[in-house]
């Protein structure tokens, strides 16, 4: 991949400690990066703290930026890490155990509550004004360690290796958590979607 036009110059100026370049980058990327932090951290003050930590961390470690990388991708990864650190520093809220949210099976391996088709597709559901808030609310009900993996993989679209590296997990553990998070989310959404029938 070629270096995006201008990135090399920006990085070179940053490495020289140019404050104008720092401000230019903050103003260019702060909006989309704050949106990322807000997805991980429900508290606005925490999200803003994570964004500030991320920018300071990024510019302290600008010498480690690889020229072939995209500055936006690099900053994205740093703000995810800052958000994760902020999450870890927060007291855990009361959580429903993941086992309670997973499908239940009979002794013979059949589903205890067989899935029935949903009356609408995701695209149709998303046309409804209330759907996005409903889905976000269900994601918030996932246990933190599962919600985090779901956000990183499905929403932020980090790959398994990067997610594993940031969470200090094995790639296989990331895959297992992601699968369970999706299963749990499907279970939380199911009664709401079925009620539309």
């Amino acid at each position, binding site marked *: 991949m070629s270096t995006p036009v201008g990135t090399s110059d920006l990085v070179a100026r940053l490495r020289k400690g140019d404050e104008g370049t720092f401000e230019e980058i903050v103003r260019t990327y*702060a909006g989309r990066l704050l*949106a990322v932090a807000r997805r991980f951290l429900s508290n606005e003050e925490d999200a803003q703290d994570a964004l500030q930590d991320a920018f300071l961390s990024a510019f302290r470690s600008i010498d480690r930026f690889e020229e072939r990388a995209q500055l936006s991708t690099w900053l994205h990864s740093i703000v995810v890490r800052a958000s994760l650190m902020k999450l870890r520093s927060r007291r855990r809220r009361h959580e429903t155990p993941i086992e309670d949210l997973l*499908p239940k099976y009979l002794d013979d391996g059949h589903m205890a509550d067989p899935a029935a088709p*949903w009356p609408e597709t995701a695209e149709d559901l998303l046309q409804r004004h209330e759907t996005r*808030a409903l889905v976000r609310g269900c*994601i918030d009900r996932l246990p933190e360690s599962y919600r985090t993996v779901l956000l990183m993989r499905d929403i932020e679209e980090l790959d398994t290796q990067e997610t594993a590296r940031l969470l200090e997990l094995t790639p296989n553990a990331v895959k297992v958590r992601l699968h369970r998070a*999706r299963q749990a989310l499907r279970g939380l959404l199911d009664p709401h979607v079925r009620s539309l029938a």
Partner: protein
Amino acid sequence: MITCRELQDFLEEYRTGALSAEQRARFEEHLAVCPPCVAYLKQYDETIRLGKGAFADPDAPVPENVPEKLVRAILEANRGKK
């Protein structure tokens, strides 16, 4: 034949083509006779799309919507770090 539980435990491997031809054939043998698992597989895909769509909110704050106070705090903190 595999059970619903086995199918659902390895759903992601099935979706991503990570199963061997033999394992895939066993999955499809089960799906051919189990409408609830067909529905479940479809809902799993819909759940992923709903998750992605939930954060692509047209009413969400636009990227430029960053408090000026926060931008100034970041710039100030950076100066203080030098």
